[in-house]
């Protein structure tokens, strides 16, 4: 047995000498992200989906609302890559038009999270005291009202459509982020390294910049990446149950609903939009996970 194990000789000086090239935090993060194959694959898938959503409708011979009763429910072919629907509309174009809407919703949700959510949570935690208490009560009131009720009430004063959904998302979409950021900063504020910075005379703005922000980006990024799929899902769900997009406009949710009704006879109507929405949601989740790890130097090998 012994000869199987040969002691590796490690030079003492070699052990202590771990040379790191001097990189910025951003460069290091990118290097770490590149090592994560799944995250990189997700990133490229999302870029591809984004490009298709942007370009496919422009370069197609058909428009999303062009009906043709001679070719209803055609299966995928060279002329209609994803087939056609009950009015003979081209599903390739309709799917990518729907993807545009889902991605728009995704960006609105992420933007709200990163602006309103982060700022609200950070201000609440940093000022503290009475301001914090009032801000938290306000959030509690918002969360207390069920989401669906807000949407239905909105439908009564606004026309059904994408902007109604965006407004509905805006009302409560940032709340989770605000709470997370607040909790994280409250925890960090009393950590000994922040106390050490204060003892050393570091200014408040530098403490926020050097200690609080770098230690909250992980939470912020991952939460934003998880908000995106849930916002996309909310839109799809609302469209699926019939309060959302109006014909002939279509989101992925509307397309899935249409396909669901003819699933037995024409499964292709459902499959393509379903694959796209699943890809978007899964890729954002994997990418979020990868980004969190990439932003954490403790993951450095």
């Amino acid at each position, binding site marked *: 047995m012994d000869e199987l194990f040969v002691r590796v000789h490690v030079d003492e000086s070699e052990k*202590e*000498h*771990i*040379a*790191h090239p*001097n990189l910025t*935090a951003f460069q290091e993060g990118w290097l770490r992200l590149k090592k994560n194959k799944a995250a990189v694959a997700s990133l490229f898938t999302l870029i591809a989906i984004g490009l298709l959503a942007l370009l496919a409708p422009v370069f197609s011979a058909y428009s999303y609302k062009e009906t043709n009763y001679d070719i209803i429910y055609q299966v995928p072919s060279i002329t209609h890559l994803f087939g056609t629907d009950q009015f003979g509309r081209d599903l390739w174009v309709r799917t990518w038009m729907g993807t545009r809407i889902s991605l728009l919703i995704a960006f609105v949700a992420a933007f709200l999270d990163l602006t309103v959510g982060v700022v609200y949570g950070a201000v609440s935690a940093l000022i503290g005291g009475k301001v914090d208490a009032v801000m938290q009560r306000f959030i509690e009131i918002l969360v207390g009202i069920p989401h669906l009720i807000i949407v239905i009430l909105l439908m009564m004063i606004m026309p059904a459509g994408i902007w109604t959904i965006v407004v509905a998302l805006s009302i409560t979409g940032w709340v989770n982020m605000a709470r997370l950021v607040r909790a994280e900063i409250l925890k960090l504020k009393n*950590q*000994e*390294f922040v*106390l*050490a*910075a*204060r*003892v*050393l*005379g*570091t*200014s408040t703005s*530098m403490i926020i910049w*050097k*200690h609080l922000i*770098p*230690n909250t980006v992980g939470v912020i990024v991952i939460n934003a990446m998880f908000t995106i799929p849930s916002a996309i899902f909310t839109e799809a769900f609302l469209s699926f149950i019939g309060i959302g997009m109006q014909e002939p406009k279509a989101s992925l949710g509307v397309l899935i609903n249409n396909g669901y009704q003819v699933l037995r006879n024409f499964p292709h109507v459902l499959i393509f939009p379903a694959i796209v929405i699943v890809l978007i949601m899964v890729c954002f989740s994997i990418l979020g996970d990868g980004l969190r790890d990439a932003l*954490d*130097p*403790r993951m*450095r090998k």
Partner: protein
Amino acid sequence: MMSAEKKPLLEVKHLKKYFPVGKNQTLKAVRDISLNLYKGETLGLVGESGCGKSTFGRTVIQLYEPTEGTIIYEGREINNSLSKAERHEFTRKMQMIFQDPYASLNPRMKVMDIIAEGMDAHGVYKGQERKKKVIELLETVGLSEEHANRFPHEFSGGQRQRVGIARALAVDPEFIICDEPISALDVSIQAQVINLLKELQKKRDLTYLFIAHDLSMVKHISDRIGVMYLGSMVELTDSETLFDDPVHPYTQALLSAIPIPDPDVEKSRNRIMLEGSLPDPIRLSEGCLFAGRCPYAEDLCRKNTPEMKEVRPGHFAACHKAK
């Protein structure tokens, strides 16, 4: 050793720090502590976990606003009268080394930037000079240049504590509050860190307030030792006297809990067992705080709070029966 004429570097007078907890309740973490610290000495501060040692240290260094009392440094009151700029300048005189080697270093900063934080805050060194100074400090605390570009998680507890020491030294302080710098370390590493602190004290003429929860830890480094119980100082005297002739029953109990490294003496030694448990620090009645656990407690103790008095020159104790 300490003559009364000598001017203290730091005077703490009737310091109190109360925390509001819940509805209309206060937690008296520090209740009326006074002490003087002289240049070049080490004052050990011991007491059980939760007795307010860290709170005392953090209030002295202005991390917490005192509820009452004054802190005087080099003859100047520092807790009220300093302007913002003076307060900023003052951070170069007094520094702190923290308890938890894991929580006290920002996991997202490289050691280079952690150590240079004080220099950056005061804008004293920049560029190449800053780097040179950091390497110098790393060597001072027994680390080397290669460590500068690493992140804290690549270090052991002892090494991290050295980084924390280097960070404090970077602004050339005169006075350092060491808040249990060795409690979280392995016994074998503790001695190394203590020796490093002692060596630095000699070279740089530092004054220490050294906090620990165990008397045996402060014995070798302290000139004087103060014993805290539930936010109050119960006994304060020079180290030898405290170990040879403790007058407060709480100090006596603490000392009897330290094993003696001689099997014969150890076998025959009488341990004073403390009865009862630590009372809830939020609701405490009048009288001696230790009365519930004190073997000598009597009616007087439960009625009147004992004042700190000088039982012998330089030997203070807060007990009605101390003589």
